């Protein structure tokens, strides 16, 4: 509901800007033989459409595209939800929205638990993860990470992983 209201306000402002832009073309009212008010409304609407399409295109959020989501295991999701972690250590093939994008975070069992902005994403081998990164990922010791990772498969120090720095956006649903 909040998102819809935000979208309506933004669209309203854009429409007002479009009307102002078209009002600048008042000299055309006779040239086009339409009259001032029809060209104001029709032109304003056309301009509004152009701006809206450009805005969505720049944001990479055109209708028809699925809203970005990120799926986490129960343990990883809990760490994020409890704000114990701001860094997610994920298998390298995990699909991730582009950096800067907002994405809905979901548990692998289905429920959504919040929205996060992807602040950074990079790769490292498991053995190269530094103590500070380990802490930001919500682990106290390398052994804790090793135990958590064993749920995903065999621990290989040279295995490449994806590290995603996530910033919570708004309130989590948990």
């Amino acid at each position, binding site marked *: 509901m909040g998102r819809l209201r935000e979208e309506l306000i933004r669209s309203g402002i854009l429409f007002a800007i479009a009307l102002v832009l078209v009002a600048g073309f008042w000299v055309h009212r006779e040239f086009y033989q339409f009259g001032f008010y029809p060209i104001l409304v029709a032109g304003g609407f056309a301009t509004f459409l152009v701006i809206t399409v450009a805005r969505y295109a*720049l944001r990479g959020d055109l209708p028809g595209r699925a809203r970005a989501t990120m799926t986490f295991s129960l343990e990883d999701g809990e760490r994020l939800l409890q704000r114990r972690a701001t860094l997610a250590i994920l298998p390298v093939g995990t699909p991730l929205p*582009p950096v800067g994008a907002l994405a809905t975070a979901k548990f692998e069992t289905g429920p959504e638990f919040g929205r996060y902005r992807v602040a950074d994403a*990079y790769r490292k081998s498991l053995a190269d993860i530094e103590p500070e990164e380990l802490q930001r990922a919500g682990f106290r010791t390398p052994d804790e990470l090793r135990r958590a990772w064993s749920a995903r498969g065999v621990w290989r120090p040279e295995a*490449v992983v*994806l590290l995603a720095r996530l910033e919570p956006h708004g309130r989590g649903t948990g």
Partner: protein
Amino acid sequence: MSLYPLVLIAAIVADAWFAAYALLRLRRTLARFAFVALLLDFIVMTAAVAGTELGALGPAWAPVALWAFVLAHPLTALFLLLAVHGEDLLRRYPYVLLLLAPVPVFAGLAPPAGYDVGNAYEIAPLSWYLILCLALPLGEAVAAWLRSVARRSELFLLITGAIVLVLTGPVYGFELDALGLVEGAGSNPGTPIAAALFALALTFANPFLMRKVPRAASGDPSIPPGAVLLADEPRSKASAHFAGLAIAAGRPTLEIVRRTARTTEGEGSVAVVGMEPARWTGSTVLATASEFLARHPGGLVYLRDLSYLATLAGLPAAKDVLLALRRTVAGTKGTVFASLALLTPEERRELLALPGVTSVRLPDPAVEYEAILGWSLGGGAAQLLRAFAGGEHRRAADLTYEDLPAIQRFLEAALAELARAPGDAPLITGWRKTLDRVNLDLDRFVRKPLQEAAAGPWPSETRRKGKEELVVRASDYWKGRELDEVLQAVSHTADRAKFAERVRTAFILVLGRTGDHLFESEVKRIGKSANDLGPEDVPRLADAAEVAIVSLGTAVDVAAGKADLEERGRRLKTLLAGILEEVGHGA
């Protein structure tokens, strides 16, 4: 008075602001130069029209308005082509400068042809020229936008800016003319909007801030010129080594890495830039490399963290960047060298299949060191390397080419220790021969130039050929003395020296130069030399230091001074306890 001249004055102010922004913030030399030239032309053109309208300028300014107006078109074309194709446009297609050639010709023809700002878009062939100047770069920008993945945002803004200029130039001009509003002829009220879009596009593709590298001819024969080389390696060790050799040979090099707290700006002939998380990293990397290669045509661009670019911008964008860079270096002495470390096998396959790129498969030195040591020392090789790496608080898998001198010193100490015990002359000679052979093989591996290293076979892939009988074989000797025992002895000696240095550093950190003197005197007091100092001595040393600090405190009358010394004493104890804990002697 009409409001239109006031709109034009506002446009002049905005254009001037964008020109200042470009001069201060944008770093693409040629694109910035063309952009500023275009904006200055817009300012002259608009000022001439507004000044004439307001009566501040006389009719003598009409030709200025006309030719500034005409010149704006080829300048727009040149700017857009430079922005789309990068800094090497003039090298690859120098004839684009011919776009400017018709301007003086039309200027000469102006009086007989009857050109003026009111009919510039109507009288051929001037009108054809003006329309061509707008259509050509617009078409180029659209084609590049359709082709490119990495630069979509930047190119979209350039296209939008060009469309704005077309709409507010010829289209609006025709409309004003049709309406009989001739006072606006020769002006373009859309220039600030187009300038804003162009400035934003150049900001998206603004090269990273990089230090200036001295110009030099390419003196590095090992990395071939005019190519994009993809280093297929498990970790970016070998590529870093060969890039390092090029740098040592004085080749101007740009190293592009993921920015971390440890990223430096480089020194000597290398400039290091750090990629930061952004959606348009592809545009920025391309602009940075293009700018560097324009300044240093024989330079080397070493893209160490290609995996970061692929993660931030996606693999299609990374491919797009490599293909664009291939076009940039083609036919020049420049080289782009990118490491495929941290990419998955599928991603590597896709990148290696790119047309026109050259791949080099490079070894991991840690694996090869073990293989080379294994030829002479059998199963003890891995143990030796682990012992060396452990002494450096690293993993054996992290050893690089640059570690070789230290490894060789360690081996010398280890093998000397082995040869010492029995005191048998043939044994000692045998070990000396073994050590010489190992060192020779290690040197031979490390000194291989890039192409030879890439051609293989690597030590790990081959068995030793023409193996000579050793006077004493490692396997024979292990029976007499355990390798672990020797490695412990060697590591112990090295560790002791390092340990003493750490303790000395703690003293200096807390007490400055006095700390150094105190350390020396307290070590002497416990009857040892610094190199013999071990963890077991530290509690005594800490107690003695505390007594010395307290006695210093008694000489200080000021309470604050005493408190400061006590605090320093506490800090020293904490630091020493930390060192002990790290070496496994903690409480």
